[in-house]
């Protein structure tokens, strides 16, 4: 028995160590490196401690970029949850088992195509002589092509399309664990469909929205592809500005400081979101 335990802990040890090493090497180390870089001015042979970079990246311009990215992320996550909830509800409760798996398959289908290609596809749709404009010209609704690309609207639109599955899937997975018996029990006790939704279904499936919301917040906050290809480059986002620092102007230290500041803002945003969702589900729990 003892031997068995030893062997078990041995195999346990070997099964987790590679993962930990991997994380240390490729996540923690670069992170430490970036944090370090943000505090030091590096000349030929010297590294001088300085807070100057942080002074720069917390100025009005940088904060505006962060604020812009953050509000776009919040907007995208909110719209995604509003679209995704009914879709997930439909798949989880209103269709047969067969159509459930077909629905999930269709949801996962966009992941088969490279994300960059998906965004390019949007360019073909939205550009000056793209699909939408040629169609509208043809049916005579407009006489001049519309400017559909290179603005905030196109960025948001494409982000919603690209990240919607990340909202639907966690909500669906929460709903598939939710027992329909509870809905029946609620009706049985005299509740209307609307009362049941607000007091039983929503509180018990809201954790999926929370997961999806945070997922989308994190992924869109640093999004680089979409603002670059569809944003027109006039308005900077967090992702585009970071790339600017690291690849164009090559001011690594300042870029690192900016990364640190925006990461902290993101952490704060996640905490706030968590708190809000906690309050919502708490409020629906103990209403009256």
């Amino acid at each position, binding site marked *: 028995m003892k031997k068995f335990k030893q062997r078990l802990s041995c195999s346990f040890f070997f099964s987790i160590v590679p993962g930990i090493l991997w994380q240390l090497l490729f996540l923690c180390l670069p992170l430490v490196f970036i944090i370090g870089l943000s505090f030091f001015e590096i000349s030929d042979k010297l590294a001088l401690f300085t807070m100057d970079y942080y002074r720069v990246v917390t100025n009005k311009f940088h904060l505006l970029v962060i604020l812009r990215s953050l509000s776009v992320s919040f907007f995208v996550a909110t719209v995604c949850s509003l679209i995704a909830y009914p879709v997930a509800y439909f798949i989880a409760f209103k269709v047969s088992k067969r159509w459930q798996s077909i629905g999930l398959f269709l949801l996962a289908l966009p992941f088969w195509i490279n994300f960059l290609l998906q965004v390019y596809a949007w360019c073909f749709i939205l550009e000056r002589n793209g699909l939408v404009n040629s169609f509208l010209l043809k049916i005579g609704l407009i006489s001049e092509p519309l400017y559909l690309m290179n603005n905030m609207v196109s960025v948001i639109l494409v982000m919603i399309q690209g990240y919607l599955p990340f909202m639907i899937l966690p909500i669906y997975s929460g709903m598939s664990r939710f027992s329909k018996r509870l809905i029946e029990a609620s009706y*049985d*006790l*005299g509740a209307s469909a609307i009362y049941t939704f607000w007091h039983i279904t929503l509180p018990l499936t809201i954790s999926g929205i929370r997961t999806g919301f945070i997922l989308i917040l994190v992924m869109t906050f640093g999004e680089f592809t979409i603002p670059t290809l569809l944003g027109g480059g006039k308005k900077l986002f967090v992702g585009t500005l970071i790339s600017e620092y690291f690849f164009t102007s090559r001011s690594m230290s300042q870029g690192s400081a900016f990364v640190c500041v925006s990461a902290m803002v993101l952490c704060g945003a996640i905490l706030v979101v968590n708190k809000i969702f906690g309050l919502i589900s708490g409020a629906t729990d103990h209403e009256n």
Partner: protein
Amino acid sequence: MRDIRLVNVCKSFGPEKVLTNYNLSVSAGSFFALLGPSGCGKTTILRLLAGFEQVDAGNIFLGEQEITDLPANERSINTVFQNYALFPHLNVFENVAYSLRIKKVAKELVEQKVLKILQTVHLDKQVYKTIDQLSGGQQQRVALARAVINEPDVLLLDEPLAALDLKLRERVLVELIELQSKLKTTFIYITHDQDEALAVADQMAIMNHGGKIEQIGAPSDIYDKPKTVFVAKFVGNTNIIKGVLQQVAETELQVNLEHIDQVLTLKRDQVVRDDFERKFVFSLRPEKIILTKNPEQLIGYDGMVTGQVVSLIYHGKSTLYRMRIGDNLIMTVFDQNRSQNGLNEAEVGDQVYLHWRSIDIVLLED
């Protein structure tokens, strides 16, 4: 209090006809058990009564009110679900208060009512616990309290003891009976367990596959006077004995029981059908038979046959024997171990004598 009636109810799921022209009436204030094997349609009846399913044809009445098309949330019928279906995000108090909250009952009254009903089901120490902090038995009682707090006309219980262990079941059974006699609500208790049904019910219906009701009556009637082979076999153990018509007189007929050498006299009005079939089926309960080692004469016991012990199962308080009678009949005999030197030392292969009273032999419809 109102009685509940199903009239000519039909229900099918796709091609499968679960209920055809189903009729059932449960009088107000009774503890009614609906007993049947799984898949016989008893759960469908419960779901129709609760309003979770709609009938294809037929009517459901609660007293004089027709509730066939009334949605579940407007029926004065509440359900205790098989796995309780308690709301996991609400604590015990809020689960029980749920229906009162919907009705917007005043806060003080809610508190008063909830605490009172929780006291009735012995949960006054668990009021503010969450559902996952409770044991199975406690969860069951929360489900019960939640369902009766609104004082419904009818309470439906769907296999409420299925998830509990044996010792707990007996206690909950007693509590259920006490609660029902206190509340005077009509209880409709759905189960496949005949012991539970016999224990709780004052009226019961035995259902066969295809939603056919085989017999309705008091538990003792069902057990002692089963009408059909299905009922006799489903409720308790029994020995099925075949008989052949021997003689027909003006008011009586004589039937020869196969393998046990007895001629039974039946009154003509006992036989339902007029064209007397030549073959009859009878039931003799294992515990109505007395065993002796010698061919004694027991007063009142007019039937006797020799048998050989094939196997025996010792239960402590009793022993279950399987006996071979002649070449083609195996009978089960249930013998109380009243004294230490009873028959329980009979071994496999021993010859013993079986005694019974012919009034305990019940004629069945095939």
